[in-house]
């Protein structure tokens, strides 16, 4: 087990090196703190996952040396980049140190406990052993993408391959250890939380930021779903990071954030097919909000939508070229009569989604308190973050409701996915809440 864990860590070193190059290429300085390292790591996972999928489609097998070469190339691109990285501004006062130490200490202790839990975790949920990790095993055992496997053996073959690619790379470095593989999911959790600190620490007081990190980590559904080795938490993580970068681009005109938005949006789309819906909702709202101040920036934002398809489109072309059939399609068998007869699904689906988002045994008070924070930020005249968080979440809930309305799958079966699909909008709200609260606190200090 220990030797396998070291192999897995070697794969993570490749992701980190690749990500350090990518963030440098996008204009951030070299990572100089744990939080910056976490952001570089997440960028590396996204970039290697996306490019790895393209390499598979091109016929490569993602062997160890191919992964090392890809990571080395991305690192080298950062080394030769002339883009100067500016340091981030530290926030002002309002940092009660004792409380901050307590919150950060609790977060780190809980993360440590989860690390042990994930280290011993077996693959026990159906879709993890039958779909996600099975695809990764096929990449390793059949030496690349095998059309026969995806035609006849893969469960829901149309899901894009970012997660199986990452798992296949882990397997290449450590062997087929499906227990230690869960450490990859722990690293995504830890990397995500660190990335939030890296992306928001110049705008949000430390205690507010660490409290938000703690709330996300302690939410029972977050660690439970991450431990299942399903793609929903990785998808939600990439999407939430894309959302935070979208806010930075919207409110601060941060060009580095635009690049990271493109990267994380592409990773979201390449992780699971509903990622496309989430990214479309986010970018649509973002374009409308940006266009109000600058049509040129709105065009750049729309361009991100094209970049976001970089992993998904080649995958769909490969599927079509190899006669891989979809498990299901939203538009299958649709006509006016069918839609009319399924109208009663809409309130049921909407209620299932809202109930899951509000369930305190899953997501604590994240959503109601995010709603309160949106109202406070609006009152404090912070319209960017409040509009982005509210409109994107509503658009996602509407889109998911529409999918459940249109689905050709048995409705009761399909709507069972509600607890998992709400992870993305919930994490988006949780990630933007500290921005909203900080705006209200700032306003409070100004007026006091």
């Amino acid at each position, binding site marked *: *087990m220990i030797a396998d864990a070291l192999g897995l860590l070697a794969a993570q070193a490749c992701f980190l090196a690749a990500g350090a190059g990518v963030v440098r290429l996008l204009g951030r300085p070299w990572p100089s703190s744990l939080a910056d390292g976490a952001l570089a790591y997440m960028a590396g996972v996204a970039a290697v996952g996306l490019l790895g999928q393209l390499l598979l489609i091109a016929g490569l097998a993602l062997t160890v040396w191919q992964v090392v070469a890809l990571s080395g190339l991305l690192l080298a691109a950062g080394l030769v980049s002339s883009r100067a990285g500016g340091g981030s501004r530290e926030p002002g006062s*309002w940092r*009660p140190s004792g*409380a901050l130490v307590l*919150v950060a200490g*609790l977060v780190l202790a*809980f993360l440590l*406990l*989860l690390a*042990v*839990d994930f280290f*011993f975790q*077996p*693959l*026990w949920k*159906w879709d*993890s*052993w*039958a779909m996600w*990790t*099975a695809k990764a*095993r*096929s990449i390793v*055992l*059949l030496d690349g993408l095998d059309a026969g*496997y995806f035609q*006849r*053996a893969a*469960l829901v073959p149309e899901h894009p391959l970012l997660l199986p690619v990452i798992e296949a790379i882990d397997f290449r470095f450590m062997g087929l250890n*499906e*227990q230690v593989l869960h450490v990859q999911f722990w690293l995504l959790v830890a990397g995500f939380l660190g990335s939030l600190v890296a992306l928001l620490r110049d705008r949000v007081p430390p*205690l*507010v930021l660490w*409290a*938000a990190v*703690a*709330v996300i980590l*302690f*939410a*029972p559904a977050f*660690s439970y779903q991450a431990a299942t080795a399903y793609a929903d938490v990785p998808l939600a993580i990439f999407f939430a990071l894309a959302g935070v970068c979208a806010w930075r681009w919207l409110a601060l005109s941060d060009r580095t954030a635009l690049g990271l938005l493109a990267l994380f949006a592409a990773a979201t789309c390449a992780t699971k097919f509903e990622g496309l819906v989430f990214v479309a909702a986010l970018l649509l709202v973002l374009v409308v909000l940006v266009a109000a101040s600058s049509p040129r920036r709105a065009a750049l934002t729309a361009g991100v939508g094209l970049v976001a398809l970089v992993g998904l489109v080649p995958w769909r072309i490969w599927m079509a070229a190899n006669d891989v059939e979809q498990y299901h399609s939203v538009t299958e068998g649709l006509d006016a009569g069918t839609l009319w007869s399924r109208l009663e699904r809409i309130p049921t689906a909407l209620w299932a989604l809202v109930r899951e988002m509000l369930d*305190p045994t899953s997501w*604590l*008070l*994240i959503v109601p*308190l995010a709603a*309160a*924070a949106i109202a*406070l930020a609006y*009152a*404090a005249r912070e319209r960017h973050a409040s509009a982005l968080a509210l409109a994107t979440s509503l658009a996602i809930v509407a889109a998911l409701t529409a999918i459940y309305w249109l689905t050709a799958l048995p409705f009761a079966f399909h709507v069972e996915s509600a607890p998992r699909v709400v992870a993305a909008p919930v994490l988006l709200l949780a990630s933007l*809440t500290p921005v909203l*609260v900080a705006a*209200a*606190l700032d*306003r*409070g*200090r100004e*007026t*006091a």
Partner: protein
Amino acid sequence: MLLLAFGALLGVAVFVAWWRRLRPRFPDDRLGAAALAVVLLAFCSALAVVPYSAWRIAEDIDHTSSLTRTEAETTGASLNSLSPGVFDELRRAIPPGDSYFVDVAPDIGSPPSDAFPEWSASALLPRLPVRSPERADWIVTWGIPPERYDVPLAGVRVVGHARERLPEAYLARVAG
């Protein structure tokens, strides 16, 4: 239940203590105070579940750390009432790269009947399933004698019970 109650008490205590300490920073401002309340409520409600969550995770570690490597690798099969030994036997008999056709008797209920082909698809890699017995090198069935398919067979054998008290699983080599 005790841990949840303890967590709730802890959350309330921290909320009160921090509210008293931090509230004076926003003496005349209801907006700032409301934002502070949101932060504290969010954190303290999360804090309330930590003792219970930590205990649950510790219990989980206690169970999973006692699994052998084999038990851990076959958890998916075991949880769906499949005997992992059957798939070990199939792996030994079917050479890597060969194809197989898999079928389950309709009277075997779900989830085991659904899990059998799904577990095979992953556990038997790099052997690939095909959709008809005519195209297969091997036939793998559960509860269906392979002679029932209209293909010449070079040998049929029982590979075990995929689940106790249910019919046997068979392996047959397709002739030619």
